[in-house]
């Protein structure tokens, strides 16, 4: 599918710039050009498709669906899936959270959404697709959704309402009528230019991170010795997964920058499961997100939330390493 891109990279580096294919620099530059272009193309398409999905299923409609349908326990799953298909913006997580609980959706179901939303987002999916292929991407997306489902359900076992901020409790007391969502007034074709513009905006927004991430990855490919991580991290020691996750939680890297680096880790011997767990902890949980959530919940609730998600990520890391 991307053969033509490889030809282009070969031509650009080896023929036009006359950097030899046998030199370290030549292969590194070729790799860099090919990967960057491939990722940007995939990114645009994934974001574009997500834009179309979102035009048809705006968040208000998803909320109404969760609210009105009897789902017999499947509401956690649906909430998690909705979290995956809505575009994630960290600054929207608090309004979303309030909007959900205000609309009468149980707190635990809301958490399912909140877990999956940053975990499975369009940028992470596109990066995974570009760097690890379809199979790993599917595993990542499906496990992210399962994780949100189980995480939300587990959180539901705690008595969480008293741990919300006072003003949120007040909102909960007088749950508002859920305003019907009025369908979009524009037709699909009218929206297309806007969707593609939105996709470009996102690609432009992460461009720098992609370039830096791939550059670091390309450099590491050349300088980190083969099997380096195998010796230290890949030998199947039980503590590698928890360590990778615990290191990743406070880190705040966006998916665009972190995936190319993870790819090198995997190429140099880190098991894919450990790498996926690391990735999930990096994008799914972060200090900035905790700071935002602090406005709506107590520290104790944030700690429970992060704690449970962390444990779930660690367990799934072990599972991947067993299965893959």
């Amino acid at each position: 599918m991307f053969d033509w891109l490889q030809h282009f990279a070969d031509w650009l580096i080896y023929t036009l710039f006359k950097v030899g294919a046998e030199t370290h620099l030549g292969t590194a530059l070729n790799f860099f050009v090919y990967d960057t272009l491939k990722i940007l193309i995939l990114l645009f398409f994934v974001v574009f498709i997500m834009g179309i999905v979102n035009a048809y299923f705006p968040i208000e409609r998803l909320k109404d669906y969760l609210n009105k349908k009897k789902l017999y326990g499947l509401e956690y799953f649906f909430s998690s899936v909705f979290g995956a298909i809505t575009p994630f913006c960290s600054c929207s997580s608090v309004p979303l959270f309030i909007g959900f609980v205000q609309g009468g959706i149980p707190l635990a179901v809301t958490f399912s959404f909140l877990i999956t939303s940053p975990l499975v987002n369009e940028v992470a999916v596109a990066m995974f697709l570009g760097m690890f292929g379809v199979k790993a991407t599917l595993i990542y997306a499906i496990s992210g959704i399962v994780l949100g489902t189980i995480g939300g359900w587990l959180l539901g076992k705690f008595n969480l309402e008293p741990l919300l901020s006072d003003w949120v409790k007040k909102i909960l007391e007088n749950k508002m009528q859920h305003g019907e969502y009025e369908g979009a007034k524009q037709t699909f074709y009218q929206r297309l230019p806007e969707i593609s513009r939105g996709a470009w905006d996102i690609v432009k927004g992460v461009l720098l991170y992609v370039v830096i991430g791939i550059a670091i990855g390309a450099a590491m490919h050349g300088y980190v010795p083969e099997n380096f991580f195998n010796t230290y991290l890949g030998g199947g020691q039980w503590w590698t997964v928890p360590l990778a996750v615990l290191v990743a939680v406070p880190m705040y890297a966006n998916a665009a920058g972190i995936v190319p680096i993870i790819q090198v880790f995997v190429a140099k011997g880190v098991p894919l499961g450990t790498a996926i767990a690391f990735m999930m902890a990096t994008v799914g949980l972060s200090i900035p997100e905790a700071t935002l959530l602090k406005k709506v919940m107590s520290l104790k609730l944030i700690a429970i939330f992060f704690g449970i998600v962390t444990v779930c990520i660690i367990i799934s890391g072990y599972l991947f390493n067993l299965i893959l």
Partner: protein
Amino acid sequence: MSKVIKILGTGCPKCQSMTGVVQKVISENNIDATIEKVEDIMEIMKYNVMTTPALVIDDVITIKGRVPSKDEVLALLN
């Protein structure tokens, strides 16, 4: 009559680009309007929006969760 434009958003990049678009439209077309940025989450929630940034013109929510084009804003203001 002067229009009151409010931009709801907690200060993310998208909210800033929305503010930029609106400001441009107003100055390019000499529209009589005031722009107010609402960044406090409690204030934002009073408008019952779930996705930011949101554009509120004379207390009516016109756009939420995305950055509009200049033409769109101009149409909304006329």
